[in-house]
């Protein structure tokens, strides 16, 4: 008759340790086993080769920006320049409008225009009235 004994646990405990803050021996053994499993390659040649592959990808064109990225980098500068140009154009437009308005006022109210014409007309009327008076005598 054979008896099957249960295999001893690989790590102590059944995983139901009471406190997450107090690692026990099982946690230490588990960490040790994990470290053995996740050991990084140690050979310097491996790391040199990996570094070379990374740099090859960069210098091979993958590391450089795609053509549409370059305009994107200049987009901010372009927007600032466009905004500045808009402000300048706007101020020039307003200034020229003000000047045009002033000229319009001047053309209406300035010397040699409407006012004096009326005065001349008044003067002519006065003169005409004088002539009429003399002729009437």
């Amino acid at each position, binding site marked *: 008759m054979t008896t*099957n004994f*249960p*295999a001893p*646990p*690989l*790590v102590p*405990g*059944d*995983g*139901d*340790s009471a406190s*997450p803050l107090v*690692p026990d021996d*099982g*946690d230490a053994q*588990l*960490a040790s*086993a*994990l*470290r*053995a*499993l*996740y*050991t*990084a*390659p140690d*050979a310097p040649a*491996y*790391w040199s*080769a*990996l*570094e070379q*592959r*990374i*740099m090859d*990808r*960069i*210098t091979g064109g*993958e*590391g450089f*920006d795609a053509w549409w990225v370059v305009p994107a980098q200049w987009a901010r500068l372009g927007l600032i320049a466009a905004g500045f140009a808009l402000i300048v154009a706007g101020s020039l437009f307003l200034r020229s409008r003000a000047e045009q308005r002033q000229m319009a006022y001047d053309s209406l109210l300035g010397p040699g225009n409407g006012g004096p014409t009326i005065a001349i007309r008044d003067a002519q009327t006065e003169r005409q009235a004088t002539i009429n008076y003399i002729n009437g005598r």
Partner: protein
Amino acid sequence: MTSIALRPASVTLVGRTSRRVTTPDRPDDEKALVLSAQRGELEAFSELVRRHQRRAYAVARAIVTTHEDAEDAVQDAFLHAYRALHRFLPDQAFGAWLHRIVANASLDITRRRKVRDADDLPETIASPFRDPAESDELRRLLRAALERLPERQRAVIVLHDVEGFKHSEIGQLLGIPEGTARSDLHYARSALRRLLNQLRSPQ
């Protein structure tokens, strides 16, 4: 233009687990390297790769399931880092910035693998250096148990127990709160121990 004497990468083993691979503790030197790389000096970026690739591999390996995927993630991450280097502020820690990129690249590969159903893919042999995690019954069982863990829990336990990252660092890398990283670690440990013992004695 600043000239920099390029030195071989220094790798030290420190930390509570005595296995943590640290990036060089030469912030000024590294800042100068970053500035040179930002000016387009490829040799400076190559030196950054040399210094950080081991740690980057460790971060990637904690998240993806195979050595080959970890290699791909590291390469993709350095490529992303090179493209985005002009946006990096040299006063920040380059390593921390890079590790976040590595974590994102690794998570991206994991998502793509899910879609493709990695089990059907042929075995790829990228280099003569095979994943050291082979043979030996405990390793086989551990691998089987790890495959049954949720991805995030697996990443958390490897980053913490193997690489020595703190909960807060893990939270930043994986984009989860520190408390979640802490509880994930607890559940991952418990689940792994339970799974290992079940696999060992299935009756």
